């Protein structure tokens, strides 16, 4: 559902049709990443067109948000080809971009700032980038209408999301108009308020040294994450609290406040690339690190480009006596459905206690009565110290799991339920195991209540005896632990 035309100097056209890949890495597929703006796909189609037709003079690329075929594109090739031209619908929604070849080859970083939902803004942006007047050609009979929140091709791009893209484009236009040396200004990744996402971004940035971005906007309270898991992206601290999880503040509102809060000096010395979700992140089978790598500029054409194809980022283990087996649990995710059910947790802890294990739980004082010590953890230094004092970490799909496994490389048993393991787990190894049930509703996307049962917990977690088995299995493989030892 992505299309492009290579317009050759002799008047011929070469057509390209691509679809979002699901893991087979076929030649006609594009890596499916949720964490990049639609314009990132426009760049990718441009790269493929140049690969297919190295002598193309101009490239006509369909708006990635729309299911357009190359044949439809061919009917919209604008008559005037001397300048960048946007083909738009009756109300100014971009249908396609007709760009000179050099712009696609040399200005990818600025093409990433195209809104892809406002032809007027994009026309101004292309004009400034190209140093010429860009044109808009209308298709008056076509009106895209209200773009839905979620589309059949996996876009998550309702009105609020579109406004966020527009906001980033407007900020870029202002900077270009106010700063003469705007071409030298860095591009900062806007992904400030999810600890897990920030961690994945930093891990990804290490693998994409020549990407689009030089900086990253982060909530100032996440500095410890950047210190514990550094990346080549220089942090731009944002002195604002995280986005509340109760939806009391919308993401658009937060973005507007964030740009305000950063102040004119920072605002006008950076471009901001939108790296929050533009697509439904849990539909793709790819790891969030890989999704971030694509967002940063890597084309992700081969399976070997993915993190699961490579070695772990880090690997370490406890230097402790084998007995007692010390286990650290994080059983409360950010959402109710990500949290391991209290009665199952009780059975799990009591069973392990009866096997002589020493247990610590993070942020779950209610589980102390089942034989565990409870600790509060709100910074990575404390978490690191606790991890190092335990043989194995057992965690739900949340930041501590990602940090412990991907940054510290500690032996980890992960507990997934209503989210897909493949988006944030690690390669299966003697020191890593992801446990999940078989329910066909995974991933459901719900946060507080199960859409099937209405309850506040997910039935897709592994049973306590399966978790105990995985822990003992790992203890045996990594530390030589046996119940008798």
């Amino acid at each position, binding site marked *: 559902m992505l299309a492009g035309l290579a317009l050759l100097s002799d008047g011929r056209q070469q057509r390209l049709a691509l679809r979002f*890949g*699901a*893991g*087979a890495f076929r030649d006609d597929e594009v890596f499916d990443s949720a964490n990049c703006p639609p314009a990132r796909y426009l760049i990718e189609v441009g790269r493929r067109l140049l690969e297919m037709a190295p002598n193309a003079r101009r490239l006509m690329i369909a708006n990635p948000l729309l299911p357009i075929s190359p044949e439809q594109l061919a009917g919209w090739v604008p008559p005037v080809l001397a300048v960048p031209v946007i083909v738009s619908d009756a109300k100014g929604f971009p249908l396609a971009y007709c760009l000179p070849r050099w712009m696609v080859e040399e200005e990818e970083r600025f093409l990433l700032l195209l809104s892809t939902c406002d032809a007027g803004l994009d026309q101004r942006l292309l004009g400034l980038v190209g140093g010429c007047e860009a044109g808009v050609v209308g298709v008056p009979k076509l009106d895209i209408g209200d773009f839905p929140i979620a589309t059949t091709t996996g876009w998550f791009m309702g009105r609020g999301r579109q406004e966020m893209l527009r906001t980033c484009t407007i900020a870029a236009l202002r900077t270009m108009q106010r700063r003469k040396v705007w071409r030298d200004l860095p591009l900062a990744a806007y992904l400030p308020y999810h600890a897990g996402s920030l961690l994945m971004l930093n891990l990804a940035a290490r693998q994409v040294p020549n990407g689009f971005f030089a900086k990253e906007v982060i909530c100032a309270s996440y500095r410890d994450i950047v210190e514990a898991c550094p990346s080549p992206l220089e942090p731009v601290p944002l002195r604002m609290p995280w986005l509340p999880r109760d939806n009391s503040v919308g993401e658009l509102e937060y973005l507007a406040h964030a740009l305000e809060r950063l102040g004119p000096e920072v605002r006008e010395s950076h471009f901001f690339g939108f790296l929050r979700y533009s697509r439904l992140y849990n539909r793709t*089978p790819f790891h969030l690190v890989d999704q971030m790598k694509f967002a940063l500029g890597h084309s992700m054409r081969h*399976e070997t480009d*993915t993190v*699961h*194809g490579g070695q772990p980022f880090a690997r370490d283990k406890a230097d402790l006596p084998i007995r007692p087996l010390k286990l650290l649990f994080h059983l409360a995710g950010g959402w109710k459905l990500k949290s391991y059910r209290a*009665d*199952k947790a*009780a*059975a*799990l*802890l*009591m*069973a392990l206690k*009866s*096997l002589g294990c020493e247990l610590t739980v993070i942020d779950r004082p209610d589980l102390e009565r*089942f034989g565990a010590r409870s600790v509060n953890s709100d910074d990575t230094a404390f978490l690191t110290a606790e991890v190092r004092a335990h043989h194995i970490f057992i965690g739900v799909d949340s930041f501590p799991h990602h940090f412990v496994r991907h940054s510290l490389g500690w032996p980890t048993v992960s507990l997934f339920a209503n989210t897909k*393991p*493949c988006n944030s*787990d690690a*390669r*299966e*190894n*003697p020191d890593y*195991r*992801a446990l*999940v*049930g*078989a*329910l*066909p*509703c*995974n*991933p459901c996307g719900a946060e507080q209540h199960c*859409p*099937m049962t209405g309850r506040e917990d997910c*039935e897709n977690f592994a*049973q*306590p*005896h*399966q978790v*105990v*088995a995985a822990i*003992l*299995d*790992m203890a045996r*493989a990594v530390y030589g632990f046996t119940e008798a030892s």
Partner: protein
Amino acid sequence: MTVRILAFFDTAYPGNWSALRQARPQSRRYPALNWPSSLGTYDTSQSEQMVSVVGLAAAAGIDGFVVDLTATPEGYRSGAETLATLCRPGVFGLAFRWRCGRDAAWADEQARPARARLLIEALAAHKSACLDGRPTLIVEDPVALGDIRQATLALRTEAAAAGLAGFRLLASRAEAAEVTGLGFDAAIDPGPADWGSCPPSNKPTGLDVLEIQAGLKDSVELTDKFYPYQLFIFSRMINREARGKVYPRVFPAYFDWAAHPEGGATLLVNGDADKGVDHYMFGLFVENAISWADRNFVEGEKLVFVESWNHWLEGSQIEPSVLDGDQVYQTVKDAIDKARFMLRSRGAAKNDPLDEQTLQRLRQICEAAYAAAGIKP
């Protein structure tokens, strides 16, 4: 080797195209039957047409078809002669299903040894086309076998005599424990009509009954069973491990009203009538079933069954269609791609699992822990 995906395939075309064309719903609540699009109304005996069918199935990642062995007075026929010529070891293969409850000749106890021989002969005729070289026979409705242990022994004896190495005998049952001790290697989830895994959504009241009897209301509320798709598939996959070695059977929808003109149909409608099949949930069903099969079965024993490639009369087909285009087909293809990518990329260095005895002990410890905590699991 990975999880093998097999789709049920009806060889009775072109004959069934006319049945499909003539099927008329007796109720407004019956979903419309669909009609083939890109593959057309093929003839399963025509090689060039079957090349397209097998090619499209293989392109989606489907490893083979399950074909019915249908009873005739003389023996059993599969209609898979042309398909068999297109099978290639390791690429595409066949498995077989026998609906013994519909086999009138089997009802005669005296005839069973001879029928077992004929059945295995029909299977052996396609020996070289069998998936991964392993002849596989699914017995639908195994209760109709009569003395099950004796029947499976007879089938196994005949298979050994016919030189069918690696003969695999599966029973359509929800609980493996009910059949593995009776000579079957494993079970496969029964079809939607044979196992309503959750309660039907239609529960006619007394008033409904009176109104139906008075001719004021559609009688299907009384005669047929309607199931909500999501709950139906959810119920099939919850705590699956506890059911033992039972292969998942996944389906996009199922409505067999064409076979029940007098009522008694099973209707598992996935999505809205005006929007077609909800392919998203179906995709997750396929994807999660494959991942589960990989985690729970040993190498060479990892199977998932898709109901169906072309059971158009039951609305379960995944072939491209007039009403759904290629969306259902693409959903299966994407789900298989995703699941296989996950399996390839995540599972290279698996630990040896704990033995069953240890697992059982841990289960008991956890149950005791539940009890000690005063919590009901």
